[in-house]
Protein backbone atom coordinates (compact mmCIF):
# COMPACT_ATOMS: atom_id res chain seq x y z
CA UNK A 1 0.00 0.00 0.00
CA UNK A 2 1.38 3.32 -1.05
CA UNK A 3 1.18 6.60 0.72
CA UNK A 4 -2.00 8.61 0.34
CA UNK A 5 -1.74 12.11 -1.04
CA UNK A 6 -4.43 14.70 -1.64
CA UNK A 7 -4.16 16.43 -4.99
CA UNK A 8 -6.39 19.43 -5.62
CA UNK A 9 -8.01 19.56 -9.08
CA UNK A 10 -9.22 23.04 -9.94
CA UNK A 11 -10.84 25.54 -9.36
CA UNK A 12 -8.56 26.61 -12.20
CA UNK A 13 -7.51 23.77 -14.44
CA UNK A 14 -6.39 23.90 -18.09
CA UNK A 15 -8.95 21.34 -19.16
CA UNK A 16 -11.95 23.28 -17.93
CA UNK A 17 -12.14 27.06 -17.79
CA UNK A 18 -14.84 26.96 -15.15
CA UNK A 19 -14.38 26.79 -11.40
CA UNK A 20 -15.05 23.36 -10.00
CA UNK A 21 -12.77 22.01 -7.34
CA UNK A 22 -12.21 18.35 -6.61
CA UNK A 23 -9.97 16.97 -3.87
CA UNK A 24 -8.46 13.78 -5.21
CA UNK A 25 -7.17 11.31 -2.64
CA UNK A 26 -4.45 9.52 -4.56
CA UNK A 27 -2.54 6.36 -3.78
CA UNK A 28 0.33 5.98 -6.23
CA UNK A 29 -1.39 6.76 -9.55
CA UNK A 30 -4.84 5.60 -8.49
CA UNK A 31 -7.56 7.91 -7.27
CA UNK A 32 -9.12 6.42 -4.16
CA UNK A 33 -11.69 9.04 -3.38
CA UNK A 34 -12.87 12.34 -4.77
CA UNK A 35 -14.58 15.13 -2.83
CA UNK A 36 -16.17 17.80 -5.01
CA UNK A 37 -16.73 21.37 -4.03
CA UNK A 38 -18.63 23.88 -6.07
CA UNK A 39 -20.11 27.20 -5.14
CA UNK A 40 -17.21 29.49 -6.01
CA UNK A 41 -19.37 31.68 -8.22
CA UNK A 42 -22.86 31.12 -6.88
CA UNK A 43 -24.89 34.03 -8.23
CA UNK A 44 -28.21 33.65 -6.45
CA UNK A 45 -30.11 34.22 -9.69
CA UNK A 46 -33.07 32.35 -8.27
CA UNK A 47 -33.93 35.27 -6.01
CA UNK A 48 -33.86 37.76 -8.86
CA UNK A 49 -37.50 36.82 -9.61
CA UNK A 50 -38.47 38.95 -6.66
CA UNK A 51 -37.24 42.04 -8.52
CA UNK A 52 -37.94 41.22 -12.16
CA UNK A 53 -41.26 41.06 -13.89
CA UNK A 54 -42.18 37.46 -14.87
CA UNK A 55 -42.14 38.41 -18.56
CA UNK A 56 -38.72 40.04 -18.32
CA UNK A 57 -37.27 37.19 -16.34
CA UNK A 58 -36.92 35.08 -19.47
CA UNK A 59 -33.84 37.19 -20.30
CA UNK A 60 -32.30 36.20 -17.00
CA UNK A 61 -33.30 32.56 -17.44
CA UNK A 62 -31.62 32.51 -20.83
CA UNK A 63 -28.42 33.82 -19.32
CA UNK A 64 -28.14 31.09 -16.70
CA UNK A 65 -25.93 29.28 -19.15
CA UNK A 66 -24.26 30.38 -22.35
CA UNK A 67 -24.51 27.07 -24.19
CA UNK A 68 -27.99 25.76 -23.54
CA UNK A 69 -29.34 29.31 -23.32
CA UNK A 70 -32.33 28.77 -25.58
CA UNK A 71 -33.55 25.69 -23.75
CA UNK A 72 -33.32 27.51 -20.41
CA UNK A 73 -35.59 30.21 -21.83
CA UNK A 74 -37.90 27.59 -23.29
CA UNK A 75 -38.19 25.72 -19.99
CA UNK A 76 -39.06 28.92 -18.18
CA UNK A 77 -41.64 29.96 -20.77
CA UNK A 78 -43.23 26.52 -20.80
CA UNK A 79 -43.54 26.59 -17.03
CA UNK A 80 -45.22 30.00 -17.03
CA UNK A 81 -47.51 29.01 -19.91
CA UNK A 82 -48.49 25.86 -18.03
CA UNK A 83 -49.37 27.85 -14.92
CA UNK A 84 -51.32 30.47 -16.87
CA UNK A 85 -53.01 27.81 -19.03
CA UNK A 86 -51.82 29.49 -22.21
CA UNK A 87 -52.06 27.48 -25.40
CA UNK A 88 -49.29 28.72 -27.65
CA UNK A 89 -49.63 28.56 -31.43
CA UNK A 90 -48.49 25.38 -33.11
CA UNK A 91 -45.96 27.24 -35.25
CA UNK A 92 -44.24 28.60 -32.14
CA UNK A 93 -43.95 25.07 -30.78
CA UNK A 94 -42.23 23.92 -33.98
CA UNK A 95 -39.93 26.95 -33.99
CA UNK A 96 -38.91 26.17 -30.42
CA UNK A 97 -38.22 22.58 -31.41
CA UNK A 98 -36.02 23.62 -34.32
CA UNK A 99 -34.02 26.11 -32.27
CA UNK A 100 -33.75 23.68 -29.38
CA UNK A 101 -32.30 21.03 -31.63
CA UNK A 102 -29.92 23.51 -33.28
CA UNK A 103 -28.66 24.42 -29.83
CA UNK A 104 -28.23 20.72 -29.05
CA UNK A 105 -26.08 20.26 -32.16
CA UNK A 106 -23.91 23.23 -31.30
CA UNK A 107 -23.55 22.15 -27.68
CA UNK A 108 -22.59 18.59 -28.57
CA UNK A 109 -20.06 19.81 -31.15
CA UNK A 110 -18.60 22.11 -28.52
CA UNK A 111 -18.36 19.18 -26.13
CA UNK A 112 -16.74 16.93 -28.75
CA UNK A 113 -14.14 19.62 -29.32
CA UNK A 114 -13.44 20.02 -25.61
CA UNK A 115 -13.25 16.27 -25.25
CA UNK A 116 -10.70 16.02 -28.06
CA UNK A 117 -8.75 18.78 -26.34
CA UNK A 118 -8.90 16.91 -23.02
CA UNK A 119 -7.30 13.79 -24.44
CA UNK A 120 -4.82 15.87 -26.39
CA UNK A 121 -6.11 15.67 -29.98
CA UNK A 122 -5.73 19.31 -30.98
CA UNK A 123 -6.60 19.08 -34.66
CA UNK A 124 -9.80 17.15 -33.95
CA UNK A 125 -10.72 19.87 -31.46
CA UNK A 126 -10.28 22.58 -34.08
CA UNK A 127 -12.26 20.73 -36.72
CA UNK A 128 -15.16 20.13 -34.31
CA UNK A 129 -15.30 23.83 -33.58
CA UNK A 130 -15.02 24.72 -37.24
CA UNK A 131 -18.19 22.74 -37.91
CA UNK A 132 -19.82 24.27 -34.83
CA UNK A 133 -19.16 27.71 -36.30
CA UNK A 134 -21.36 26.83 -39.29
CA UNK A 135 -24.16 25.87 -36.90
CA UNK A 136 -23.70 29.16 -35.05
CA UNK A 137 -24.14 30.97 -38.37
CA UNK A 138 -27.47 29.20 -38.87
CA UNK A 139 -28.51 30.26 -35.39
CA UNK A 140 -27.41 33.86 -35.93
CA UNK A 141 -29.27 34.13 -39.22
CA UNK A 142 -32.53 32.77 -37.80
CA UNK A 143 -32.58 34.27 -34.31
CA UNK A 144 -30.18 37.20 -34.39
CA UNK A 145 -27.88 35.94 -31.67
CA UNK A 146 -25.01 33.49 -31.77
CA UNK A 147 -25.38 31.86 -28.36
CA UNK A 148 -28.03 33.95 -26.60
CA UNK A 149 -30.90 33.32 -28.98
CA UNK A 150 -33.37 35.67 -27.31
CA UNK A 151 -36.12 34.31 -29.51
CA UNK A 152 -38.37 32.70 -26.93
CA UNK A 153 -40.94 34.62 -24.96
CA UNK A 154 -43.84 33.81 -22.71
CA UNK A 155 -46.66 33.07 -25.12
CA UNK A 156 -44.69 31.94 -28.14
CA UNK A 157 -41.69 33.00 -30.17
CA UNK A 158 -40.30 36.44 -30.91
CA UNK A 159 -39.06 35.74 -34.40
CA UNK A 160 -40.22 33.71 -37.31
CA UNK A 161 -38.21 31.66 -39.79
CA UNK A 162 -39.22 32.62 -43.31
CA UNK A 163 -39.66 29.85 -45.94
CA UNK A 164 -36.51 31.06 -47.75
CA UNK A 165 -34.53 30.90 -44.53
CA UNK A 166 -35.89 27.43 -43.87
CA UNK A 167 -34.78 26.16 -47.28
CA UNK A 168 -31.35 27.71 -46.74
CA UNK A 169 -31.16 26.24 -43.23
CA UNK A 170 -31.91 22.73 -44.50
CA UNK A 171 -29.36 23.08 -47.29
CA UNK A 172 -26.69 24.23 -44.86
CA UNK A 173 -27.59 21.42 -42.48
CA UNK A 174 -26.80 18.92 -45.20
CA UNK A 175 -23.29 20.37 -45.48
CA UNK A 176 -22.91 20.33 -41.71
CA UNK A 177 -24.16 16.76 -41.52
CA UNK A 178 -21.56 15.60 -44.03
CA UNK A 179 -18.79 17.29 -42.05
CA UNK A 180 -20.12 15.84 -38.80
CA UNK A 181 -19.94 12.34 -40.25
CA UNK A 182 -16.22 12.84 -40.88
CA UNK A 183 -15.59 14.04 -37.32
CA UNK A 184 -17.78 11.43 -35.64
CA UNK A 185 -15.97 8.75 -37.62
CA UNK A 186 -12.73 9.78 -35.90
CA UNK A 187 -14.31 9.77 -32.43
CA UNK A 188 -15.91 6.38 -32.93
CA UNK A 189 -13.20 4.48 -34.79
CA UNK A 190 -9.77 5.98 -34.21
CA UNK A 191 -7.61 3.64 -32.16
CA UNK A 192 -5.96 6.35 -30.07
CA UNK A 193 -9.32 7.89 -29.15
CA UNK A 194 -10.74 4.49 -28.23
CA UNK A 195 -7.67 3.80 -26.16
CA UNK A 196 -8.42 6.85 -24.02
CA UNK A 197 -12.19 6.30 -23.73
CA UNK A 198 -13.06 2.60 -23.71
CA UNK A 199 -13.62 1.15 -20.25
CA UNK A 200 -12.82 4.42 -18.47
CA UNK A 201 -15.26 5.56 -15.79
CA UNK A 202 -17.85 2.81 -16.02
CA UNK A 203 -21.22 3.53 -14.39
CA UNK A 204 -23.57 0.57 -14.15
CA UNK A 205 -27.28 0.87 -14.89
CA UNK A 206 -28.24 0.53 -11.23
CA UNK A 207 -25.66 3.13 -10.18
CA UNK A 208 -26.80 5.57 -12.84
CA UNK A 209 -30.35 5.43 -11.51
CA UNK A 210 -29.52 5.55 -7.82
CA UNK A 211 -26.99 8.37 -8.30
CA UNK A 212 -29.53 10.44 -10.18
CA UNK A 213 -27.59 10.75 -13.43
CA UNK A 214 -29.35 12.60 -16.23
CA UNK A 215 -28.96 13.07 -19.95
CA UNK A 216 -26.24 11.33 -21.96
CA UNK A 217 -24.61 10.11 -18.73
CA UNK A 218 -27.79 8.19 -17.90
CA UNK A 219 -28.48 7.03 -21.45
CA UNK A 220 -24.95 5.68 -21.91
CA UNK A 221 -25.61 3.32 -19.01
CA UNK A 222 -28.52 1.65 -20.73
CA UNK A 223 -31.47 3.71 -19.50
CA UNK A 224 -33.37 5.14 -22.46
CA UNK A 225 -34.77 8.07 -20.52
CA UNK A 226 -35.14 11.34 -22.34
CA UNK A 227 -37.39 14.20 -21.27
CA UNK A 228 -38.29 14.83 -24.89
CA UNK A 229 -40.56 11.81 -24.47
CA UNK A 230 -42.77 14.09 -22.35
CA UNK A 231 -43.87 15.44 -25.74
CA UNK A 232 -43.37 19.10 -24.88
CA UNK A 233 -43.07 21.59 -27.77
CA UNK A 234 -43.60 19.66 -31.00
CA UNK A 235 -41.96 16.41 -29.95
CA UNK A 236 -45.34 14.70 -29.70
CA UNK A 237 -45.79 14.99 -33.45
CA UNK A 238 -42.28 13.99 -34.46
CA UNK A 239 -40.85 10.54 -34.84
CA UNK A 240 -38.37 10.19 -32.05
CA UNK A 241 -36.66 7.38 -30.18
CA UNK A 242 -34.12 8.13 -27.40
CA UNK A 243 -30.60 6.90 -28.01
CA UNK A 244 -29.02 4.69 -25.41
CA UNK A 245 -25.89 2.58 -25.13
CA UNK A 246 -25.08 -0.19 -22.74
CA UNK A 247 -21.33 0.33 -22.16
CA UNK A 248 -21.67 2.96 -19.44
CA UNK A 249 -18.08 4.12 -19.99
CA UNK A 250 -16.65 7.32 -21.47
CA UNK A 251 -16.83 5.85 -24.96
CA UNK A 252 -20.53 5.14 -24.47
CA UNK A 253 -21.21 8.71 -23.38
CA UNK A 254 -19.29 10.00 -26.37
CA UNK A 255 -21.21 7.67 -28.69
CA UNK A 256 -24.57 8.80 -27.31
CA UNK A 257 -23.71 12.43 -28.02
CA UNK A 258 -22.39 11.62 -31.49
CA UNK A 259 -25.61 9.77 -32.35
CA UNK A 260 -27.69 12.62 -30.94
CA UNK A 261 -26.07 15.01 -33.40
CA UNK A 262 -27.64 13.15 -36.30
CA UNK A 263 -30.86 12.60 -34.43
CA UNK A 264 -31.17 16.35 -33.96
CA UNK A 265 -30.55 16.95 -37.67
CA UNK A 266 -33.27 14.43 -38.41
CA UNK A 267 -35.67 16.09 -35.95
CA UNK A 268 -35.07 19.50 -37.54
CA UNK A 269 -35.83 18.02 -40.99
CA UNK A 270 -39.04 16.47 -39.69
CA UNK A 271 -40.08 19.68 -37.99
CA UNK A 272 -39.30 21.75 -41.08
CA UNK A 273 -41.46 19.44 -43.17
CA UNK A 274 -44.40 19.58 -40.77
CA UNK A 275 -44.28 23.17 -39.55
CA UNK A 276 -47.72 24.77 -39.94
CA UNK A 277 -48.23 28.38 -41.02
CA UNK A 278 -49.85 30.90 -38.73
CA UNK A 279 -49.30 33.08 -35.72
CA UNK A 280 -46.13 32.75 -33.69
CA UNK A 281 -47.28 34.22 -30.38
CA UNK A 282 -50.35 34.81 -28.26
CA UNK A 283 -50.96 37.83 -26.10
CA UNK A 284 -50.22 37.34 -22.43
CA UNK A 285 -52.71 38.86 -20.05
CA UNK A 286 -52.90 38.48 -16.30
CA UNK A 287 -50.31 37.14 -13.92
CA UNK A 288 -49.30 33.59 -13.03
CA UNK A 289 -50.85 32.03 -9.97
CA UNK A 290 -49.99 28.43 -9.23
CA UNK A 291 -47.01 26.14 -9.40
CA UNK A 292 -45.38 23.82 -11.88
CA UNK A 293 -42.32 21.65 -12.21
CA UNK A 294 -41.15 22.31 -15.74
CA UNK A 295 -38.90 19.59 -17.13
CA UNK A 296 -37.08 19.79 -20.44
CA UNK A 297 -34.21 17.87 -22.00
CA UNK A 298 -31.11 19.99 -22.43
CA UNK A 299 -28.01 18.89 -24.30
CA UNK A 300 -26.55 17.97 -20.90
CA UNK A 301 -29.65 16.28 -19.55
CA UNK A 302 -32.88 16.99 -17.78
CA UNK A 303 -33.38 20.47 -16.37
CA UNK A 304 -36.05 21.04 -13.72
CA UNK A 305 -37.56 24.42 -13.01
CA UNK A 306 -39.88 24.86 -10.08
CA UNK A 307 -41.96 27.95 -10.69
CA UNK A 308 -44.42 29.26 -8.14
CA UNK A 309 -46.48 32.40 -8.68
CA UNK A 310 -48.87 34.09 -6.30
CA UNK A 311 -50.85 36.24 -8.70
CA UNK A 312 -48.52 39.24 -8.67
CA UNK A 313 -46.18 40.16 -11.49
CA UNK A 314 -43.20 38.85 -9.51
CA UNK A 315 -42.93 35.13 -8.92
CA UNK A 316 -42.65 33.76 -5.37
CA UNK A 317 -40.07 31.16 -6.20
CA UNK A 318 -38.02 30.16 -9.15
CA UNK A 319 -35.76 27.19 -8.71
CA UNK A 320 -33.54 25.69 -11.36
CA UNK A 321 -31.98 22.29 -11.00
CA UNK A 322 -29.54 22.05 -13.85
CA UNK A 323 -28.22 18.83 -15.37
CA UNK A 324 -24.62 19.32 -14.22
CA UNK A 325 -25.77 19.63 -10.62
CA UNK A 326 -27.42 16.22 -10.91
CA UNK A 327 -24.37 14.76 -12.63
CA UNK A 328 -21.91 15.65 -9.87
CA UNK A 329 -22.61 12.51 -7.75
CA UNK A 330 -22.06 10.17 -10.76
CA UNK A 331 -18.81 12.04 -11.44
CA UNK A 332 -17.65 11.43 -7.88
CA UNK A 333 -18.47 7.75 -8.31
CA UNK A 334 -16.57 7.56 -11.62
CA UNK A 335 -13.48 9.22 -10.17
CA UNK A 336 -13.16 6.69 -7.36
CA UNK A 337 -10.69 4.06 -8.59
CA UNK A 338 -9.63 5.73 -11.82
CA UNK A 339 -6.12 6.60 -12.96
CA UNK A 340 -4.95 10.12 -12.17
CA UNK A 341 -4.28 10.75 -15.87
CA UNK A 342 -7.92 9.98 -16.70
CA UNK A 343 -9.34 12.59 -14.34
CA UNK A 344 -9.60 15.43 -16.94
CA UNK A 345 -11.32 13.09 -19.40
CA UNK A 346 -13.75 11.86 -16.77
CA UNK A 347 -14.61 15.35 -15.57
CA UNK A 348 -15.42 16.26 -19.14
CA UNK A 349 -17.53 13.20 -19.92
CA UNK A 350 -20.43 14.51 -17.84
CA UNK A 351 -20.24 17.71 -19.93
CA UNK A 352 -19.83 19.97 -16.92
CA UNK A 353 -21.31 23.43 -17.16
CA UNK A 354 -20.50 25.19 -13.94
CA UNK A 355 -22.23 28.41 -14.85
CA UNK A 356 -25.46 26.37 -15.02
CA UNK A 357 -24.75 24.76 -11.70
CA UNK A 358 -23.98 28.06 -9.96
CA UNK A 359 -27.15 29.79 -11.02
Amino acid at each position, binding site marked *: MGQRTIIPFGPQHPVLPEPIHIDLVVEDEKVIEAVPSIGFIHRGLERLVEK*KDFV*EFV*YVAERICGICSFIHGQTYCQGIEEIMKLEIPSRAKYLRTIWGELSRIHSHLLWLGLMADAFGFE*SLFMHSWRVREQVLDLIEATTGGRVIFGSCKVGGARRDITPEQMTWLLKQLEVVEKEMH*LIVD*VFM*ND*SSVKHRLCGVGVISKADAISLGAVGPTLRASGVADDMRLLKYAAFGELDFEPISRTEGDSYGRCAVRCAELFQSVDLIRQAAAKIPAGEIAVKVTGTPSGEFFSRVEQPRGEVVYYIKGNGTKNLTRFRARTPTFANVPPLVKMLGGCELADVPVLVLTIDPCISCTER
Partner: protein
Amino acid sequence: MAFFQMKKMILAWTFRKPVTTSYPFEPRKICPGSRGRLDVKISECIFCTICDKRCPTQALDVDKVNKKWRIDRLRCISCGYCVEVCPKKCLLLTGDHGIPTVTKEMETF
Protein backbone atom coordinates in the same frame (compact mmCIF):
# COMPACT_ATOMS: atom_id res chain seq x y z
CA MET B 1 -9.97 -0.39 -35.44
CA ALA B 2 -8.26 2.13 -37.60
CA PHE B 3 -5.02 3.85 -36.97
CA PHE B 4 -5.09 7.65 -37.31
CA GLN B 5 -8.56 7.86 -38.80
CA MET B 6 -8.12 11.56 -39.39
CA LYS B 7 -5.32 11.42 -41.96
CA LYS B 8 -7.62 12.00 -44.95
CA MET B 9 -9.23 15.05 -43.42
CA ILE B 10 -5.93 16.54 -42.32
CA LEU B 11 -4.40 15.97 -45.76
CA ALA B 12 -7.38 17.59 -47.46
CA TRP B 13 -7.19 20.64 -45.23
CA THR B 14 -3.48 21.08 -45.88
CA PHE B 15 -4.37 22.40 -49.31
CA ARG B 16 -7.33 24.58 -48.36
CA LYS B 17 -7.57 28.18 -47.36
CA PRO B 18 -7.82 28.77 -43.59
CA VAL B 19 -11.35 29.29 -42.30
CA THR B 20 -10.20 31.91 -39.83
CA THR B 21 -9.88 35.57 -40.83
CA SER B 22 -7.24 38.10 -39.86
CA TYR B 23 -9.73 39.91 -37.68
CA PRO B 24 -8.93 43.60 -37.21
CA PHE B 25 -7.94 43.98 -40.88
CA GLU B 26 -10.79 41.93 -42.24
CA PRO B 27 -14.06 42.51 -40.35
CA ARG B 28 -16.32 39.59 -39.51
CA LYS B 29 -19.07 38.81 -41.96
CA ILE B 30 -22.28 39.42 -40.05
CA CYS B 31 -25.41 37.48 -40.93
CA PRO B 32 -28.39 39.60 -41.95
CA GLY B 33 -30.85 39.81 -39.09
CA SER B 34 -28.17 39.74 -36.42
CA ARG B 35 -29.08 41.69 -33.31
CA GLY B 36 -26.44 44.38 -32.95
CA ARG B 37 -26.38 47.98 -31.71
CA LEU B 38 -29.59 49.74 -30.87
CA ASP B 39 -30.29 52.73 -33.06
CA VAL B 40 -32.91 55.44 -32.59
CA LYS B 41 -34.55 57.68 -35.15
CA ILE B 42 -34.60 60.58 -32.75
CA SER B 43 -36.73 62.83 -34.97
CA GLU B 44 -39.64 60.39 -34.64
CA CYS B 45 -39.23 59.71 -30.92
CA ILE B 46 -42.02 61.12 -28.72
CA PHE B 47 -40.11 60.49 -25.42
CA CYS B 48 -42.89 58.32 -24.03
CA THR B 49 -40.31 56.50 -21.79
CA ILE B 50 -41.86 53.08 -22.42
CA CYS B 51 -38.48 51.73 -23.60
CA ASP B 52 -36.86 53.14 -20.46
CA LYS B 53 -39.39 51.40 -18.19
CA ARG B 54 -39.30 48.08 -20.01
CA CYS B 55 -35.54 47.73 -20.55
CA PRO B 56 -34.53 44.61 -18.58
CA THR B 57 -31.03 45.95 -17.87
CA GLN B 58 -31.90 49.62 -17.24
CA ALA B 59 -29.59 50.63 -20.04
CA LEU B 60 -31.89 53.35 -21.32
CA ASP B 61 -32.59 56.70 -19.70
CA VAL B 62 -35.25 58.80 -21.36
CA ASP B 63 -35.87 62.32 -20.13
CA LYS B 64 -39.39 63.46 -20.95
CA VAL B 65 -38.86 67.09 -19.90
CA ASN B 66 -35.55 67.84 -21.61
CA LYS B 67 -36.28 65.57 -24.60
CA LYS B 68 -33.12 63.55 -24.14
CA TRP B 69 -32.77 59.88 -25.09
CA ARG B 70 -29.67 58.28 -23.62
CA ILE B 71 -28.25 54.78 -23.74
CA ASP B 72 -25.49 52.99 -21.87
CA ARG B 73 -23.97 50.81 -24.58
CA LEU B 74 -22.18 48.61 -22.07
CA ARG B 75 -25.41 47.71 -20.30
CA CYS B 76 -27.49 47.11 -23.41
CA ILE B 77 -27.85 43.40 -24.17
CA SER B 78 -29.40 43.92 -27.62
CA CYS B 79 -32.44 41.88 -26.66
CA GLY B 80 -34.79 43.93 -28.78
CA TYR B 81 -37.51 44.27 -26.14
CA CYS B 82 -37.58 48.07 -26.53
CA VAL B 83 -37.92 47.67 -30.30
CA GLU B 84 -41.02 45.54 -29.76
CA VAL B 85 -42.72 47.89 -27.31
CA CYS B 86 -41.90 51.19 -29.05
CA PRO B 87 -45.25 52.76 -30.08
CA LYS B 88 -43.64 54.87 -32.82
CA LYS B 89 -41.40 52.08 -34.12
CA CYS B 90 -38.48 54.51 -34.10
CA LEU B 91 -36.07 52.05 -32.46
CA LEU B 92 -34.23 49.40 -34.42
CA LEU B 93 -31.40 46.95 -33.97
CA THR B 94 -28.72 47.29 -36.60
CA GLY B 95 -26.46 44.50 -37.77
CA ASP B 96 -23.46 46.54 -36.69
CA HIS B 97 -21.92 45.31 -33.43
CA GLY B 98 -19.99 48.46 -32.60
CA ILE B 99 -16.36 49.00 -31.80
CA PRO B 100 -14.56 48.27 -28.52
CA THR B 101 -14.51 51.08 -25.98
CA VAL B 102 -12.41 51.94 -22.97
CA THR B 103 -14.73 54.37 -21.22
CA LYS B 104 -18.15 53.93 -19.67
CA GLU B 105 -20.19 56.70 -21.15
CA MET B 106 -23.81 57.35 -21.88
CA GLU B 107 -24.56 58.11 -25.47
CA THR B 108 -27.05 60.98 -25.80
CA PHE B 109 -29.41 61.62 -28.66
